[in-house]
Each structure stands twice: as structure tokens, then as C-alpha cells.
């Protein structure tokens, strides 16, 4: 029986990796859709190049964070050469663990009054 992996083993994730997992958290997507989703959600602050994206996809597949999805949208709306990717339960746990880790850092920064209400944001 395969050993249950601890999501913490893969932390910290790179920001790009977290964005890819987030992009897949609400449904299966193909590569270009992931790039568009990340760019839209971050208002263009994070742009994934094709090479970077597929390096992340390759690693995510290898670590079991995502799988290739067998389900495909309506063929009329789809190019059959595209592959769709789905977040696995383990991948979701890794993303949650990374978000919790980042949240903990933000809380520490708030406790030290580095950020938070009443603090002027420095440009």
C-alpha cells in the first residue's frame, strides 16, 4: 500500500506553482486556460510563460498534485489536441498547506504591526 504523503514535504511552493494549483482548484483546465486564468486573477502581475507552465505541470504530475483529466468538454468547443489537468486531493492539500503557511507569516507580520489596519502601506 502506498505511503500517505505529507503535503508539508513539498512546501514551500513557488508562487507560480501555487497559482497553477489555485487555477485548477475550481475545475479542470488546459495549459493556455491556466495561463489566462492566472494572468486575469493577478491583473497581469503574474504571467506564466509556456516553458515555465509545462515545467510546473511536469513537476505537479510527478508529485501527484495534478492528473490528466479524462473528461473533456463538448468536442464542438474543444480542440482535441489539448490536454486538461485536474487537481488531486493531495494537490489540494498541498495548496491548502501552502496558503496556511503564508497566512501564518501574514499573521506574524500583523502581530509585529508590520502590516494591518492603521499602518500606512509603503509603495
Amino acid at each position, binding site marked *: 500500500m502506498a505511503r500517505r504523503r505529507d503535503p508539508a514535504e513539498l512546501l514551500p511552493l513557488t508562487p507560480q506553482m501555487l497559482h497553477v494549483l489555485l487555477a485548477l482548484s475550481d475545475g479542470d483546465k488546459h495549459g493556455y486556460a491556466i*495561463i489566462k486564468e492566472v494572468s486575469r486573477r493577478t491583473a497581469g502581475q503574474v504571467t506564466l*510563460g509556456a*516553458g*515555465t507552465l509545462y515545467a510546473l505541470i511536469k513537476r505537479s504530475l510527478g508529485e501527484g498534485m495534478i492528473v490528466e483529466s479524462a473528461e473533456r468538454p463538448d468536442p464542438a468547443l474543444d480542440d482535441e*489536441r489539448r490536454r486538461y489537468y485536474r487537481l488531486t486531493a493531495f494537490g489540494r492539500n498541498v495548496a491548502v498547506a501552502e496558503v496556511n503557511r503564508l497566512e501564518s507569516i501574514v499573521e506574524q507580520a500583523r502581530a509585529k504591526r508590520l502590516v494591518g489596519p492603521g499602518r500606512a502601506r509603503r509603495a
Partner: protein
Amino acid sequence: MRGSRRFRWLLRILPADTREAHGHELEQVLRDSYAERHQARHGAIRFWLAVVFDILRVAPRQHAEAAVQDVRYAARSFRRTPGFTLAAILTIALGTGAVTAIFAVVNAVLLRPLPYDEPERVTLVWARHPDGNRVWLAPAELEDARANVPSLEHIVGLTDLELALTGSGAPEQLHAVAASASLLDVFGIRPLRGRGFTSGDDLDSATRVAILSDSTSGRRCSSPSRRMARH
């Protein structure tokens, strides 16, 4: 489509396993990105700059990861079938050694130019004894050749000698070559220090002159100036 060819050419920078697994998708994504961006002002240039930079940034790590995977796979194979792996390593080692040895000989004999001027004009001549063995020419035969074969620029006689070097330090047995004075002219070389042979050195009445090899000179003479003086 020209763009597709360029994409495929660019993707060759990535390791083969990445291309096999995701090459078509990468191409598709690049085509989609290009279609969206190339009509903007300077869109095509900015697109290609971004793509080339991205691929060049990602490729080294991908290659490194592929190399690590190969090493891991090799280590696992070694653990599973050590006998076969050792036999393969031994075969490769012997093959490499044999090829290296053969190349060393071919390089020295056939490929590497001889270390003197116009080697194609130099030839070694023997006489053939009635019993079939090759023998050196006699001094008189050399003189005949000098007198009767004007097309030869130089004719040099050579013979092996065993000499004892005495003087400072312990006497030493040396392997030497006795040669006519034009030996250095034939090969177009000059001694590093001192003088070469002159035609006067060929006369029977001349003082015998020697040129020491660099190793003998370094071993027997303490200073370059003394090495020069020892003729």
C-alpha cells in the same frame, strides 16, 4: 506554418522527455499566445522575446532534473541487476580504452604532422643485404650519393652509439646518434641553446661535437650557460 516551425525549433532546447510528454501542448499554447498578442503594437517582437527568455530560463533546470532522473534510474538498475551493470560498465571501459589506444596510434602515425619542416620531403634509405636484411649505407655509399644524386638537397648519415658521459657527477651511459653535420638542416631545427653542427664538424680532423637532449642537459648541467658551453 512558419511560426510552428520556429516553435518546434525553439522547443528543441528543452530535454527530449519534456518535448515528448508536452511538446504538442507547448506548441499549441505558443500558437494561442501568439495569435492573441502578435497584432498589438510590437506584439510579435515582445512575444518572441518573452518566449525565448522563458524557454532559456527553464531549460537548464529541466536538463538538470532529467540528468538526476537518469542517474537515479541507473542507480536503481545497478541495485537490481549488479552483475549485468558491472558487465556493461566493464564492456564500456574496455571499449573506450581500446578506441583510445587505437586513436593514439592512428593520431601519432597518420594524423599528427611530424614535428619538423616539410616532412614529406624527408625519407629514410637503407641498403638491402643479400640475406634480405636491411642495413645502413656505408659512409662511402653516402659520399657516392652526395656526388651523384644532385636532386637530394641533403644526405645525412646516422648511426646509433652507446657513449659514456663523464665529467661532473657520476659517469652515465647514454644512447646517442652520430650524424652528419647537415642533420639539423634536414629537419629545419635549431638547438635551444648554443650552436648547431657546421660543415667543418664533418672533417676527420675536427673536434667531436655533441648536442645534448633537453632532459640530459637538464640532468647533467646546473645552469643554462654551462649547458651551452658543453660541446
